[in-house]
Structures are given as C-alpha cells and as structure tokens.
C-alpha cells in the first residue's frame, strides 16, 4: 500500500515537471534546443528583413535626391546571409559582419574585410 502511494507520488511529480515544461514552451515559442546553430539561423532569417549595413546607409541622409538613390542603394545595402561562415555579407563594400551566439554584430569596426579594397572601410567618425 505504501509502495502504491509512493508510486503515485512519483508519477505526480513527474507530471508536474512535464507540465511545467509544457507550459513554458506554450505560447508559440520557436523550437529551442534543437541545435545552437539552428537557433542562430532562425533568429537571423527574420531579422534579415530589418538589418542593413550601417555604413552604406550613411550617404542617404546627406545627398539630395533620396528617392532615386534609395532604389539604387537598397540593392547595395542588402545583406546576404552566408550560412557556411555564419556571417552577414555586404557585397558592395566587401565586408562581413560576424554572428556570435545567434546575435549579429553590426559594428563596422568588428566587420571583416572580404577582399582587399583600395580604400579601407570607413570608420564612423569619417562617415
């Protein structure tokens, strides 16, 4: 009799733990814990709609005809997500922003030059 009570207690505790787990994943949380890289990818793909290269956005503000430049610059400032190296690449300027732990690092100084340019990537004070 004691054993049956004990058994029931254990299964209840098990249920509570499972229930807690279930509750925490309820609410449309994206699948976590499958793999670290997968998480990083999931975060990135939805973020890509919002992110632009901070450097090539700069000229937009100072130069006159915004509409024309906008369409041209939009293509230029699109970032390409490189799954192999886990970086965000700006083709035009030839720089790559690293993604660490699923968080993209959009600081120009931390970006890697992909190919040697004649002019180095501009620092924020110059831009």
């Amino acid at each position, binding site marked *: 009799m004691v054993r049956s009570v004990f058994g029931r207690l254990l299964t209840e505790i098990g249920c509570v733990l499972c229930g807690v787990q279930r509750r*925490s*994943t309820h*609410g*449309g*949380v*994206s699948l*976590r814990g499958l793999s670290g890289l997968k998480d990083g990818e999931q*975060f990135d793909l*939805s*973020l890509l709609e*919002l*992110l*632009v*290269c*901070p*450097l090539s*956005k*700069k000229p*937009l*503000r100072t130069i006159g005809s915004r509409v024309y430049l906008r369409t041209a610059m939009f293509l230029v*400032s699109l970032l390409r997500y490189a799954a192999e190296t886990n970086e965000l690449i700006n083709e035009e300027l030839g720089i790559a922003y690293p993604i*660490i*732990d*699923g*968080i*993209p*690092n*959009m*600081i*120009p100084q*931390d970006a890697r030059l992909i190919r040697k340019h004649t002019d180095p990537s501009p620092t*924020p*004070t110059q*831009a």
Partner: protein
Amino acid sequence: MAASMRLLFRRVIRLSHRNVNVTAAGAPGRPAGCWEPPSCRCFSEAAGDRSTHFGFETVPETEKAKRVYKVFENVAQKYDTMNDAMSLGVHRLWKDTLLHVMHPQRGVRLLDVAGGTGDIAFRFLEYVRFQQERQKRRAARSMQAPSWQDISNNYSTEEEDGAQESRAVVCDINKEMLRVGKQKADGLGISAGLSWVVGDAEELPFDDDQFDIYTIAFGIRNVTHIDQALQEALRVLKPGGRFMCLEFSKVTNPVLARLYDAYSFQMIPVLGEVIAGDWKSYQYLVESIRKFPDQEEFKDMIEDAGFYSVKYSNLTGGVVALHSGFKL
C-alpha cells in the same frame, strides 16, 4: 571569514576616504580643478581633437566609447542585481511607467536601443500579450452562446499570430550585456518576436522608417554623441513613430537633491564594490548622471533633432525623467 570581512571593510573605508575628496570637488556650487557645471559639455577644440566628459574626467571622444564599453562589460553579470540594490527596486516601477505611457497596441514594432539586459523589451512583449488575452476574454464574454461554427473559427485562427505581429528588437553596443539579456530571455521562456542585435546607437543598422517605437532607457547618457543618436532615432522611426527616453535627471526639490547626492556618492559606489566588486564603474555611473543635461535642455536637444510634441515628466521627484517625442 571574519578576517576577510574585516579586510573588505577596511578596503571600503579607504576607498570611501579617497572618494570624499573627489565628491568634495564634484559637489555642486564648489569650483575645483577640472569640474565643470553639469549642464555644459566641455569641448576643447584647441588641440584639434575633441574631448568630452567621462564622469567628472575629461577624455578624448574616441576614448569615451571604449571606456564605457569596459564599464558595462565589467558590470554585465551583476547589472540587474545592482539595479535592484541601488534603486531599492524602484527601477522596476520606472520601467513599468514607461510601458504604461507607451501603451503599445497590437502589431507594433519596438526598437530598444542600449537595451542591454532586455528589461524594456520583456515588459513590452508581456504587455502586448496581456492586452491580447484581455481582449480575447472580453470577446469570449460577449459571445454568450457561440455556435459550433464560431468555436471552430476560434480554434483555427492562430493565437500566436497577434503576439508575433508585435516585435521587439534589442540593440546594444555591448556584447556582454546582450548575452546576459539573451540568457534571461531563455530563462523566462520569452523568444517569440524578440531579436538581439549588436549595434551602435550613433549608427543603427536599420533601414529608414522601420519602427513604431524607439526606446532608450538609462542608456543615452553613455552615448558619446547624443545628437547623432537622436538623429538616428528620427531616421529609423516611421512617420508617427514615438521616441521615448528614460534617463536620470535633475532633482527639482533642493532637500531631496541633497539627500540624493549624498546617497549617490556615498552609498552607490560602496554597493558597487560589495556586490559587483567594481567601485570605479559605479563611480562613473553617478558622475555621468551629474554630467547629463537637465530636463529642459534635453527636451531642446530632442526638438533640435526634429521631433515634435516633445514632453517630459518627472518620476520620483526628478530623479528620473521620461521624455517623449513624435516623428511627424
């Protein structure tokens, strides 16, 4: 154990004695070596390279960002604990007030700059979710006797859609703070509609007209060029978007001001040493509060950047000011 406590106390007393000299120099109304009145930023253009303030120190502008980065890198792990200890938990009320004033609706996009450990973003997502559930409950109550058709419709419409429409992006220049914030989010189980980006407030990696609300809570005084950060805020906001800024400001009541000064300079660095093991960072913190422009001046700065209908309200007698402006 007792010996180590005694050593700690002795160290604290020694540091506080050293601090007293600094605070004597920094107390308002008493001129001293390099102390400037809190409402003016010191720029020395004589040598050609500009300098700015880092707490009560004068440093070249390029230095400031690095030093601020180091400060927050050091305190990141204990940041939330220290906030609770220093403000006696009142910082939660300030942030809740920000959310209530913001009153976000469904499908709203938030950019939280200098968001660090994500306090504002979490509150935002919870608020929107709570509003949604309340609406749903009201709708359920109004439907007295739903037909089977209605019930099946309710099941088919995704509950999560609303929550995912509203989106919060946390942007901070400091990777450590974001890492701590991400861990917190994982612990709380919040991840839908929440994104983390390392970015500079003076050079945001976002396109124009993207966000409905831009918040910066207790972060703007650490930015080297506040006007640039304000201009970036204007750029990324949609027309009709709202700029909201929580920041420490000037206390209006003189008695409270004296108490606040005493508390800031005597207690806070000590707490910093005891809890986070970092006296200097918290010394910087209280000094940077004194160097930040007051409510009216900051309001003018926001208006200069191009925001309209700029208002501010004092919380806790002026210890914190909530500034708000619209992009029209």
